[in-house]
């Protein structure tokens, strides 16, 4: 399964959820869905914006883990 490590990157960049949501252009509720791994899919445009704001690569945000 795909794991979203957004909170790790946010802690590294010392950015709050509200600020990140505002800069990316999504609602804090949607950002929370992403952070808690409840999302079904992520748009390339959202991923691009996240990488731009957090100054990182998609691999820093997304990870793959085998399901047990």
């Amino acid at each position, binding site marked *: 399964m795909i794991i979203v490590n957004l909170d790790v990157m946010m802690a590294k960049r010392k950015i709050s959820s509200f600020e990140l949501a505002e800069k990316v252009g999504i609602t804090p509720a*949607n*950002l929370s869905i992403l952070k808690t791994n409840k999302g079904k*899919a*992520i*748009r390339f445009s*959202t991923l691009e914006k996240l990488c731009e704001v957090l100054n990182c690569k998609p691999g820093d945000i997304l990870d793959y883990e085998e399901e047990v």
Partner: protein
Amino acid sequence: MELSGKKGIGNILKIFLQICFYGGIIVLIALPFVFSALGITLHSSMYVIYPNGIVMLAIGYKFIQLFNSLKNNDSFCEDNIKIQKSAAKLSIVESVLWLLDFLYSVFLVKYEDIIVVLGLAFFSILFFGVAIALYILSELFKQAYEYKKENELTI
């Protein structure tokens, strides 16, 4: 003309169904009193009106619930899928009841009015068709609901 909303065709249909529903209840309650007052004896197979009538009212009630969601502009929800599935099951019950009445009329009482007998068979087939249509519709709604949920969770 709009489909949903307060002035939509869905709401007009809902009002029509409500009239049929409450009218049906009144008819079912009043029927024995009216017939006894008029001194009319019904053919025994006509007593199927009662169980059939009750199931039909239940189907009508399910459709009223369905049109309620149209008013709220929220058609693709879990509740509607459940409503359609239970309406399909009720239609199967209705179809079986009509079939039993048809068999009763043909084999036990040997009812001679061919139009009535054919009518009973027709209603049995009709409700079976309605049940299948409702089941297919509920599966389509289920698919649409899943797509909607997936779309909502695409960030």
